[in-house]
């Protein structure tokens, strides 16, 4: 098995990294370049940059952020937010990113996933899912950072997307996001059984036990975290040490 990937997620708004709860009530955390460098030095296995206003205003100012970060950071980087065309994918990859996370544009036109996979390879196409719980075993896929409803049922949606050639799923629980109260374990269990590709869970990690609970409920390839690192609740290296002491394979 590969090591469990621990992935800091940087939600970028303009020139700042921000963080909210349930993707709302955003607070400024710091500069993306500084945080990325710190997390890289601390042992991040990958980094996710999410341009959280790009879907609203249709701009991609995140490219310069990634380009600057890529000069000194030598782990994979995923970029999401406002990626709507093959030209957008190309621009993101040219800035130094390795993968693109696509949500809104895929919901609007699922074939976009296939076109991106065929043009650039499945390995760089990540389906970003913002899942909102709607009942027992039911979730709705949201877009635009949790602002827009789609009516799409998450489990059907990930299955359809997997058939279109995606290489990975970034699975964010809108309910748990920012709460530090644990991952949505039912969501993890349901989605990891529905798709054959790697799944990275996001939303709610407040400590080592939350990740351990997630791994026990489904085959997780990685966990993306934000608050726990941004607010210094547990440094990345300490989180990994904690997982190692529980017998989990992590890269130290």
């Amino acid at each position, binding site marked *: 098995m590969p090591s469990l990937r621990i992935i800091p997620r940087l939600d970028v708004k303009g020139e700042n990294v921000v963080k909210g709860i349930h993707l709302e009530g955003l607070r400024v955390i710091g500069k993306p370049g500084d945080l990325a460098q710190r997390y890289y030095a601390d042992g991040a296995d990958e980094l996710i940059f999410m341009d959280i206003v790009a879907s609203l205003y249709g701009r991609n100012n995140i490219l310069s952020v990634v380009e600057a970060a890529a*000069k000194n950071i030598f782990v994979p980087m995923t970029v999401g937010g406002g990626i709507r065309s093959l030209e957008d994918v190309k621009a993101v990859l040219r800035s130094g990113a390795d993968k693109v996370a696509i949500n809104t544009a895929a919901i609007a036109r699922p074939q976009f996933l296939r076109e991106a996979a065929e043009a*650039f390879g499945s*390995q760089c196409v990540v389906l970003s899912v913002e899942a909102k719980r709607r009942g027992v075993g039911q979730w709705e896929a949201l877009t635009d950072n949790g602002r827009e409803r789609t009516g799409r049922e998450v489990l059907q949606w990930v299955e359809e997307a997997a058939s279109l050639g995606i290489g990975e799923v970034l699975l964010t629980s809108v309910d748990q996001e920012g709460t530090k109260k644990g991952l949505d374990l039912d969501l993890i269990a349901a989605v990891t059984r529905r798709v054959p590709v790697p799944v990275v869970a996001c939303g709610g990690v407040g400590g080592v036990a939350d990740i351990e609970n997630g791994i026990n409920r489904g085959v997780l390839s990685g966990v993306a975290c934000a608050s726990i690192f941004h607010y210094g609740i547990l440094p990345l290296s300490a989180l990994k040490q904690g997982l190692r002491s529980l017998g989990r394979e992590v890269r130290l």
Partner: protein
Amino acid sequence: MIAVVDYGRGNLFSIGNALRFLEIPYTLAENPEQILLAERVLLPGVGAFGDAMNGLTSRHFIEPLIEVARRGTPLLGICLGMQILAESSDEFGGHSGLGLIPGHVIRLPAGNAEDSERIPNIGWRKLHFRSPVSEPFDAVGDQKQSVYFLHSYGFFPAAASDIVATTSFNGAAPAAIVRRGNVVGYQFHPEKSGAYGLELFRAFMSIR
């Protein structure tokens, strides 16, 4: 000067960043002459095998790459660039490679169990070096460090002597580092494998 082959199919920017960080001067080879004149050649590659071979063919890069390999110029293929060194690949109907290292590229084996390893193989894994580890990998080969893999197909060289290191995937052992004389391949991404990945770039630079 080291030439990074630009055929529209690789993460040239990340490789360029790593080389700049290591203060290794390089040029992008955009025509056959630049490949033939290089002291060292780096062949990146991301995407599909057949598409990459088409990219090399349309730019008339196939012959120069085979020529530099034959005359002893150190050549490093990265990820898909390593798989292209093989004789052939099963990917999307089957394609011929450069044939510089005998063996074939096949899809990674799927597992049956619920907790089987998932395809694509994405993530950090340790390298299993085949002993005895020859230079320059002996200097880095005993480290218990991980490198970053991102692939769905694996290269299984015909001769064990061409395999420097393997990784493991659902019970199979696809090549992680291959070497036949001056021709070297890394299945993982050294430009995305942290400080250890950068060391493996240096290891290639020391091959004469």
